[in-house]
């Protein structure tokens, strides 16, 4: 990362008459768009930039230098599982044969692609301990919504009207938001002093809402990085009340090799391929959020579905012939919840995840959870003096501190996060979970070496020291980044969200 601001917008580099493309000119010009009635045509040309190729190359190269990615340095952003994104996976996803496939082309012409798709479904089912997966959802939140739709479709099929969903107060914000989009009402379950689900409160709520409970959504390990030790009792309680258990797969990385959501009693879950299966986050997407279900719920999954089939032909010359292969089933069965996307998901992302699974193989995947957890516990033990550890004991793949231990300096979690940027680290997740005022959530992932982690720990100690000796400097950090702290209030009060608006207001 370059530490001075580049700062240009492509519009500012545009000059009338320049072009950055070349198209064939020898085409049949019998018809032109001038044939279209004027009422169907736009009045003025879109003001898109006019740039030559090198200008565009330099612009986006220079812009990239003001960005920080996993390849630049340690990225301990809690809950986001910022793994290394293997380059070989990019090479495979970029293969021309995959890139040029139209989603509606005949299955016989794309068996290789469908095989990857199908085998990824099967691999995820094995890793999750569930029966079947759909790969249609494009992101974690999209998966949550799809999973809740499965649950509602299940209850609907039984003519059972259930409108409430139990969600622990420590949950990711997407859980209640997904529930609301899915037409469900959120009932919040309290956490106990250990940061795990308060079973007494859960019992009370189940008694209160009983036949109204459609589901309970849970993350395990939860957002504090703590395993819910009484998960089996919880799933049993909810099942007894007639509800289904939803597993938010955001934290699945901790459990690879150790336990599976299906074995904990969960009925429906999503997996973030861009977390647990190493596909790049791309500055916010594209991700992929496959949804898995236990046996009996498969028929509610969204369409289309990729299936393995055996077709029997009876050819006059060859006699009965068997063809085994893969198809995209667009059939809209009565029981399916419907569809959740244009086609059948982000295939480009699936290729990377499947390449990752094949690279690691069964013998390496099983170490992922252990090493991620080792790294997190190591950080926890070494930082717990200078940083307030609100909940003692084991953590899994991430650890949450409640800011600096010494609150007298006035240095906040925000300040610590911003100071880390000066030292060449991405900040941890801050002010989440909401259970603490100064949450600082660190997730190291299994890819980080002891040296990297030790260096990070040293810097964290150093910042704790700086908070005492020079609090003002920490409070005004970062000092060594392309830009300083921004005026959020100005941005929100008078929103300027396009170049044209910015020209008007300047």
């Amino acid at each position: 990362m370059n530490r001075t601001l580049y700062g240009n917008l492509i519009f500012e580099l545009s000059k009338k008459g320049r072009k950055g493309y070349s198209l064939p000119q020898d085409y049949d010009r019998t018809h032109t768009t001038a044939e279209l009635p004027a009422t169907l045509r736009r009045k003025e040309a879109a003001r898109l930039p006019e740039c030559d190729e090198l200008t565009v190359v330099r612009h986006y190269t220079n812009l990239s230098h003001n960005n920080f990615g996993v390849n630049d340095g340690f990225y301990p952003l809690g809950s986001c599982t910022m793994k290394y994104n293997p380059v070989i996976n990019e090479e495979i996803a970029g293969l021309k044969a995959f890139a040029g496939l139209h989603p509606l082309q005949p299955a016989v012409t794309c068996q290789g692609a469908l095989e990857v798709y199908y085998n990824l479904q099967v691999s995820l089912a094995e890793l999750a301990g569930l029966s079947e997966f759909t790969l249609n959802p494009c992101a974690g939140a999209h998966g949550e919504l799809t999973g809740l739709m499965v649950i509602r479709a299940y209850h609907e099929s039984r003519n059972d009207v259930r409108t409430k969903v139990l969600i622990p107060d420590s949950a990711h914000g997407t859980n209640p938001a997904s529930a609301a989009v899915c037409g469900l009402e959120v009932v919040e379950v309290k956490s106990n002093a250990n940061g795990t689900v308060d079973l007494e409160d859960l019992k009370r709520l189940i008694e209160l809402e009983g036949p109204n409970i459609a589901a309970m959504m849970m993350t395990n390990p939860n957002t504090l990085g703590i395993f819910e030790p009484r998960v089996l009792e919880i799933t049993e309680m909810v099942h007894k009340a007639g509800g289904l258990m939803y597993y938010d797969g955001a934290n699945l990385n901790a459990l690879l090799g150790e336990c599976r959501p299906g074995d904990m009693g969960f009925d429906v879950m999503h997996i973030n391929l861009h977390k647990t299966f190493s596909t790049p986050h791309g500055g916010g997407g594209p991700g992929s959020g496959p949804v898995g279900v236990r046996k009996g719920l498969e028929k509610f999954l969204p369409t289309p579905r990729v299936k393995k089939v055996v077709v029997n032909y009876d050819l006059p010359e060859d006699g009965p012939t068997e063809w085994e292969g893969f198809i995209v089933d667009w059939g809209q069965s009565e029981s399916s919840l419907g569809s959740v996307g244009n086609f059948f998901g982000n295939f480009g992302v699936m290729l990377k995840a499947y390449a990752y699974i094949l690279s690691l193989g069964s013998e390496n995947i099983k170490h992922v959870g252990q090493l991620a957890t080792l790294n997190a516990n190591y950080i926890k033990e070494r930082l717990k003096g200078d940083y307030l550890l609100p909940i003692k004991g084991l953590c899994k793949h991430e650890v949450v501190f409640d800011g600096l231990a010494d609150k007298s300096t006035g240095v906040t979690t925000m300040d610590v996060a911003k100071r880390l940027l000066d030292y060449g680290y991405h900040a941890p997740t801050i002010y989440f979970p909401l259970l603490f005022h100064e949450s600082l959530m660190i997730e190291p992932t299994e890819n980080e070496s002891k040296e990297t982690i030790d260096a990070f720990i040293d810097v964290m100690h150093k910042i704790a020291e700086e908070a005492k000796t020079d609090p003002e400097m920490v409070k005004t950090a970062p000092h060594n980044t392309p830009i300083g702290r921004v005026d959020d209030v100005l941005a929100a009060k008078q929103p300027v969200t396009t170049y044209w608006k910015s020209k008007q207001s300047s």
Partner: protein
Amino acid sequence: MYKYFPHTEEDLQEMLKAAGAKSVHDFFDDVPEATRFKREYELPEALSETDLRLFFEQLTAPANTQPLICFAGAGCYDHYAPSIVQNLIQRSEYLTSYTPYQAEISQGTLHYIFEYQSMIAELTGMDIANASMYDGATATAEAAMMAWGNAKKANCVLMSETVDPKVRRVVETYAHFHGFPIKLVPAEGGVLDRKALDKALAEGGVAGLIVQQPNYFGIVEDYTGISDAVHEQKGIFIVNANPSDLAILKTPAEWGADVAVGEGQSLGIPMTFGGPGVGYMACTEKLMRKLPGRIVGQTLDNRGQRAFVLTLQAREQHIRRQKATSNICSNQSLMALYVTIYLSLMGKEGLREVAEMSYAGAHSLRDKLIATGKFKDTFPGQPFFNEFCVDYEGDLDALLDECTASGYLAGVKVGEKTLMLAVTEQRSTEEIDELVEIIQQFKEEEAKA
């Protein structure tokens, strides 16, 4: 150790000791015995990089995976993109970063999203665009929910039958679970039936209307007067438009739309078997705070420099939880970058040229298919852009199989006899002529024998 795991035996011992554990298994002591996974995963053994390459080479051999010369569309188009687009989006600073929460070290992402928003606003004519949605179908569903949430008193959202049935199914799925009805307004001769629309509007309680442009069948519909009629009912007018065609076609804003949505894959993104693409979503300033998804805004930093930052976050799930405008928390950032670089290169003229070439190719193909005597226009006299429908008198499946065997994807079957074909600037005159020739030569009886 494995190439993605840096821990040596020595590291392990030192770290375990510092963490107060004897073995990595100790960290899972709190996991109930009954839920522990004790066997090996039933997955293939690890492949070396060489073997991994071989594996995928075999899967992409022509016998297994064969891209066809593409005359299919139906929401996914084979457009040209300059070579440097793919190259630039592979830069690790873009590829391996997260959502730009830390503005100080994310100005790269924030700048290009601001550019993307500006370009989408410019193409659609709308005031504001978000940082992107999963795809065109979910963007349309979000728009339907926006209409429903915005309405004070309503009992349905209307949707034209000429909207892509795949998109319709997604909108209907979302609406069903969210809890509002979608009323389908029927089509007549391939376009929205205005009488049926007037009737549906007259019944009242309309939160919004969704139409598509060009519509599913490729027809460029005339939506004059519709926005006023919808607004009279206090509903919002939602136009799902193919952004590539907006180089030429009347913008959603010019049609009086309150919300514009659509699939951005046509802006040069490879088809990749249907995804990832990118959904775009734009609206009027009035609806700005009801818009779902990420939005980047301009501001100043404490050194007085122009800077960009995620803004209007009070709409979003991480703050509002169940009261958020949507549950979406990611976007298709990297695909939005793809679109931004593509549009920077194509610019004002290039996108227009793409539209002209696609239009010319599609009209030329239609003329030639009609001239074979084997086809009739499905919707005679209707203006179309780069996609159109024709009816085939014989066995359409057999004809399509023949084309496939010759390496051509001759369109998408949208009815028993109806074939929908799309042409982009990627299709040469030679390819068009060869497809017509294959069809001309095709003899059903021979195929059957």
